[in-house]
């Protein structure tokens, strides 16, 4: 563990990413305390530029709603959607990939054809269709993002499992009479965990981007203040009020960057040989 932390620290970018993520996490936890009123409340004049009134440091939107409050409340939604949808897609991708890789043969064929079916549809277009079919809400967005993002997980797991399958310790487990299920869960999965963690941190970033893009297009939950929503609502007034779209845009950029940097760091820390070779 200490070795992991030393390597992770060695990657400057990863530390920066961690700091940004910590800030976003704190914002999402403390938003209800910092901004006690709803982010939908019209608290000031519409189109207030940032810095003009200290009560609304980042300005107000077209209706006079506080952008800073929207950002703080939106942080929670972005993280929620990012994490939950990633967990859901791991729950789909890991069992499918593991089963395909371990059993091979027709099981592999069937599962991989299904995976390919999901992979050939452009994922964002697919997500739009899914959200439009179910009514837009946080749940439907999470489901849609999970459904479009699990195939890479399945692919990765299948490859990992296939390479592990012929190792001696697996053969030993087989000879000792353990069932396929036990072997996968007890012997194989623990050994695939590092690449999955790295992949997952990147997936969180993608999920946050997808959520923002859906909200930007007006397919988000209309009762939830999210970063993508603020940008979408501010898009038409970009010429008069750049700040409405700018600040949430920066928030998305930094958060997504943070997850990517952390992913890199994790990759270095969890695959030390790879990192050394690269370094």
């Amino acid at each position, binding site marked *: 563990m200490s070795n992991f932390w030393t390597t992770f620290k060695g990657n400057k970018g990863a530390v920066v990413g961690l700091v940004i993520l910590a800030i976003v996490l704190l914002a999402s936890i403390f938003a209800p305390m910092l901004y006690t009123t709803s982010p939908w409340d*019209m608290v000031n004049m519409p*189109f207030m530029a940032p810095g003009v009134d200290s009560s609304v440091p980042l300005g107000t939107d077209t209706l*006079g709603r506080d952008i800073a409050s929207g950002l703080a409340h939106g942080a929670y939604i972005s993280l929620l959607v990012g994490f939950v949808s990633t967990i859901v897609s791991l729950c789909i991708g890991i069992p499918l990939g593991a089963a395909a890789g371990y059993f091979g043969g027709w099981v592999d064929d069937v599962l991989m054809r299904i995976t390919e079916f999901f992979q050939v549809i452009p994922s964002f277009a697919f997500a739009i269709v899914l959200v439009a079919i179910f009514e837009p809400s946080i749940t439907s967005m999470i489901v849609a993002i999970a459904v479009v993002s699990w195939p890479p997980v399945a692919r990765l797991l299948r490859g990992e499992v296939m390479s592990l399958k012929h190792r001696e310790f697996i053969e030993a487990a087989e000879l000792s009479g353990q069932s396929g299920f036990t072997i996968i869960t007890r012997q194989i999965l623990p050994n695939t965990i590092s690449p999955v963690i790295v992949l997952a941190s990147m997936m969180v970033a993608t999920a946050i981007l997808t959520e923002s893009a859906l909200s930007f297009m*007006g397919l988000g939950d*209309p*009762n939830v203040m999210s970063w993508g929503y603020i940008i979408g609502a501010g*898009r038409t*007034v970009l010429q*008069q009020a750049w700040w409405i779209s700018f600040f949430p845009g920066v928030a998305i950029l930094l958060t997504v960057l943070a997850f990517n940097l952390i992913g890199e760091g994790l990759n270095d820390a969890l695959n030390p040989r790879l990192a050394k070779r690269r370094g």
Partner: protein
Amino acid sequence: MLSTTAMRRAAIAAACSIAATSGMAQETPVKGGRLDLVVQPEPTSLMIGITTNGPSLLVGGSIYEGLLRYDENLEPMPSLAKSWEISEDGLTYTFHLQEGVTFSDGEPFTSKDVVFTMKDFLMETKSKWRAIMEPVADVTAPDDTTVVVTMKEPFGPFIRSLSYNVAPMVPAHVYEGTEYATNPANDTPIGTGPYVLAEWKRGSYIELDANPNYWREGLPYLDDVVYHVVPDAASRATAFETRVVSVLPGGSVENFDIPRLAAEEGVCTTEKGWEYNAPLSWMWINNRTAPMDNKKFRQAIMYAMNREMMLKVLWNGYGKVATGPITSTIPFYDAVEPTYEYNPEKAKELLEEIGYDGKELRLLPLPYGETWQRWAEVVKQNLKAVGIPVEIESTDVAGWNQKTSQWDYDLAFTYLYENGDPAIGVARNYISSQIALGNPFNNVEGYSNPKVDELFAKAATAPSDEERQAAYTEVQKILQEDVPVAWLTELSFPTLYDCSVQGLVSTANGIGNSLGETWIKK
């Protein structure tokens, strides 16, 4: 910042209107030129005897004409009818048609076409027309240029039902004996109007050319009119700034963009041209279910809403807060009590009084763009402030139609046209005979009051305007007390145009009915 823009806008608008009036007095129109404007969204058809949504009427109004046109006070003006008489008892209308009018295919326009349009064509294609023809006994053509309409009972609103958008005159020789809806001529519209369809490049533009045989001497002034199809609001604004188009008809850019565009040099604005439609926005309140079945709850909704603020912030002050069911610009409006000012305390009291349990309401926004979505968000906050929790539902046009027509909503945004007379555009929203499952318009809220039914019926057929006024005044009082729907604002869709464009709006129907007299100053 806001107020300076507003002042600048007002100053420029004033300057423009002075320029426009003095210009009209001194300068004579010049012929020639091309007018570029925007149509949003792209019409599905230009045959406005069948397709009657806004974009179709905007373009089709330059191709088809009605018997009459209306000025800004909704007084009838000659169009295809040169003059008309109404008998003392209000039972006989005699119309004298213009002479020497031809359709764009060269065939003459006669009283036969009028009779065919009124008695056959529109009866089949438009349910609204069938309602107008209810009190009509017969339409006859004693000679080629005379049409006589006889009534079963007096029906004052009839004289305001003959505009191009309600009753466009269609050629009998093309449609008689055919399946109207599938007639191939629908794609190549044949009318008597100042322009004819030259080219329609789907997804891109619709081009009309001047009708060389137009019956009004010396008109139209323009050579061509091109309606550009630009699907994105921000791009439409840019197209106007770069003068790819020189006219933005009302509603074609986001409200937030209007002050910015209007403040530019050489840009004129007008709010005229919507007097006939008189669009009024409101929220359907589903009167069928608790707690909305209680009139005190509905009154509380009215008191809870800060409609002044909505008008100022969402519509940049264009329009007017509605007092009740009839728009203040159409005949028989009366400023009666009760009216509802912003008073959240009163709303809370009313909710307290009826023992409202805090049941959450669903709110269906109108899927017509940013402004409407923001509007729903404001209403949600207003209602939340008095203790009514609201959940906004996501929807598209099909979903909105489905939910309102199946009465599957609590509150739903809408706006409807009043069509020049309360008997035509207002009554339908409140009388019990118009409660019909499956129709997203008319009495969707399910309000039913025999007294109101009786008064609207009386007002429509009363022989004199005084009697009609008395009935409408009374019905407004009752409705404003009962709050069957939550009236929001009388909408105004300002038209933005380059100041070189003259005579853009000359009727109560706006650009759709005026381009024959439009010209461009060189």
